[in-house]
């Protein structure tokens, strides 16, 4: 089980240069991501980055601060506001043997590059055999009062595209190890960083240059016996908090962190259900055809005999993420919603 700590302050927007770990050696999720990028850029000169304002400015969230000074504008490329072309350029350069990592200023703007992502990037290898080692990364998710166009969880759209691995880490170590794996992977990968986590969560993160976390493997972040909470991203932290509260009341919830939402690690999920016989599928993506739909359907299909209660889904309604605190709080699943759902399931 990973050790994590929730910072008191809000995420804010201030700069925080790469590599600034705490004295104890802890790294935030953001720093862990910057480290992964830095190390892979050092390791393999085919790796380069492109995106809006990632150069001198260091990126909207300052993930790439300091990179252009070290690697130059040939490998840290500021692009125009042209997302279709950012993706297309990544693809074309990958076809010629480079290993692009494209930053989207917000994951929301991945919809502006949707056609190149789903029509070219996701399908090209299946049709023609040309490997496309492309990583698309960007900050996703809500909870930071950024409203509809800066809070999206686009993972269901891209997980349905077929040919792109979709990664949604919740912890700094996982983020670092998975991003390094994604950059080394010969297939297209989408790496969705959760902006609520960026500066809130820190932990001791491995420093070995070959520290990798495998893509497509879930991780049990807390063992439990009564109910399995299957989740990913920021919701992992909500689930862990709920599990802690539930433990005080004598209930034992297991928290499975998917880490990769596509391909899905069915084995780990099913093993957990075999143990607990009860599943709460928790996802920050909209309920209708959100990641939870696939997880719930898979459990229903493959763990039917083990289930002692219906598979329950907890996720936001199918509406744009609203701005006002009262609305966003009502929109997002909260810790108490999770506790209530676990209690309902336990009572079945």
């Amino acid at each position, binding site marked *: 089980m990973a050790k994590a700590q929730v910072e008191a302050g809000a995420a804010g927007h201030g700069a925080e240069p790469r590599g600034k770990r705490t004295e104890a050696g802890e790294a935030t999720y953001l720093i862990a991501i910057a480290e992964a990028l830095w190390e892979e850029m050092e390791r393999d000169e085919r790796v380069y980055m492109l995106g809006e*304002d990632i150069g001198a400015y260091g990126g909207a969230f300052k993930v790439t601060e300091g990179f252009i000074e070290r690697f130059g504008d040939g490998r840290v490329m500021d692009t125009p506001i042209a997302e279709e072309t950012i993706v297309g350029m990544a693809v074309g350069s990958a076809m010629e043997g480079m290993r692009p990592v494209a930053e989207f200023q917000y994951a929301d703007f991945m919809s502006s590059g949707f056609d190149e992502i789903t029509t070219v990037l996701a399908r090209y290898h299946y049709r023609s055999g040309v490997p496309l080692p492309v990583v698309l990364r960007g900050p996703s998710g809500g909870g930071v009062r950024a*409203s509809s166009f800066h809070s999206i969880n686009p993972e269901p759209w891209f997980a349905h595209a077929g040919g792109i691995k979709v990664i949604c880490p919740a912890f700094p170590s996982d983020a670092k190890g998975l991003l390094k794996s994604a950059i080394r992977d010969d297939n297209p990968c989408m790496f969705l960083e959760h902006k609520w986590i960026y500066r809130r969560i820190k932990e001791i993160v491995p420093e070995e240059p070959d520290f990798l976390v495998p893509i497509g493997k879930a991780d049990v972040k807390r063992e439990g016996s009564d109910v399995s909470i299957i989740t990913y991203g920021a919701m992992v932290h909500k689930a862990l908090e709920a599990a802690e509260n539930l433990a005080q009341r004598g209930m034992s919830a297991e928290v499975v962190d998917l880490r990769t939402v596509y391909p899905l690690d069915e084995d780990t999920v099913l093993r957990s259900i075999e143990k607990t016989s009860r599943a709460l599928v928790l996802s920050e993506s909209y309920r209708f055809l959100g990641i939870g739909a696939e997880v719930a359907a898979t459990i229903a299909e493959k763990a039917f005999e083990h289930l002692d209660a219906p598979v329950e889904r907890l996720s936001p309604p199918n509406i744009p993420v609203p701005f006002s605190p009262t*609305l966003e709080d009502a929109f997002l699943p909260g810790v108490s919603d999770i506790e209530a759902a676990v209690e309902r399931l336990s009572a079945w």
Partner: protein
Amino acid sequence: MTTELRQTDQGRPLPDDRLKHVLYLLRLCRYFDERMEALYRQGRLPGAIYSGRGQEGTHVGVASALEPDDSLFPTHRDLSAQLTKGLDLNRVMAQYWGRIDGYLRGRDGNSHVGDWFGHRTFAVISHLPIAYPVACGAALAYKRRGDKRVAMAICGDGSTSNGRWHEAINTSSIHRLPVVWVVNNNQYAYSTPNTLEFGVPTIAERAAAYGIPGVRVDGANVLEVYAAAKEAVDRARSDGGPTLIESVSLRWRGHAGHDPAKYMPRELLEDHMANKDPVKNFETWMLAEGIVTAGDVEEIQKRVEGEFEAGFEFAQSSPYPEPGDVTKGLWVEDGYWTSEPGRGGGTEAS
């Protein structure tokens, strides 16, 4: 297909009372911008701010050329244009604080505002420049119905690199739609300078690629901006098709409240603040022409400050939306937008 830097029009293109209104708007937008930034820095304003300071000449100038029935499709940077179009400051400020009396009932924040039913402004969407094609559609409706109305869309210099910009202008040219395309060239897209956005000296000259007139104006001169916009609006209204207007200024502040804009050369900024201040320029002219006295200006400033205070109070005392309403109004048949909204309890700050 003229592409020229217009000289300041020294005549009086508008009646004095409208000129005074322009001065009021410039002062209002400037004051609003400064005060909101101060509140943001004090941690008293939630969400984001996108300063339009230094670009008021562009925003007030172009929007002043529109009639109430004409529609406006702005971006995050263009709140001053929406205020010019007539939006109520109280409701705008309620939006910033996420309150139910905001135009979008708390569903969106900051300058992502709009008032379609009232002042015919499109509720801003972040994705750039996603409202350009939508403006085509409004203009299409006017043309088909023979309405003598015009749509105007604004976006920034950086947004011109995006495919939608090209598609919308191209389509408007084919069908000679009554639309005015404005580019607020404030020389930066976030941290990215013009040279990394396009490979030509000006944006206005790109109008030639669409067979439409293109004009480049000095955003520091609100009258020059207004004159170009008026000509374009009149042309569109009389079925003369679209126009591209590039109005050049500088973004005086960072991209958003959190950005110190260290990438911007100090001298550039200082030059603009000293010599290309659209508010000061216009005020000086108004005083020189004797249209206003120093006393009038003071009065305007007082009015502006009063309105800001009132807006602030209004926003603070407006309740938050009812949490239980969060799922309402996705569909028209929910009736949410045609009924009184639930007002969710107490306020935070007042």
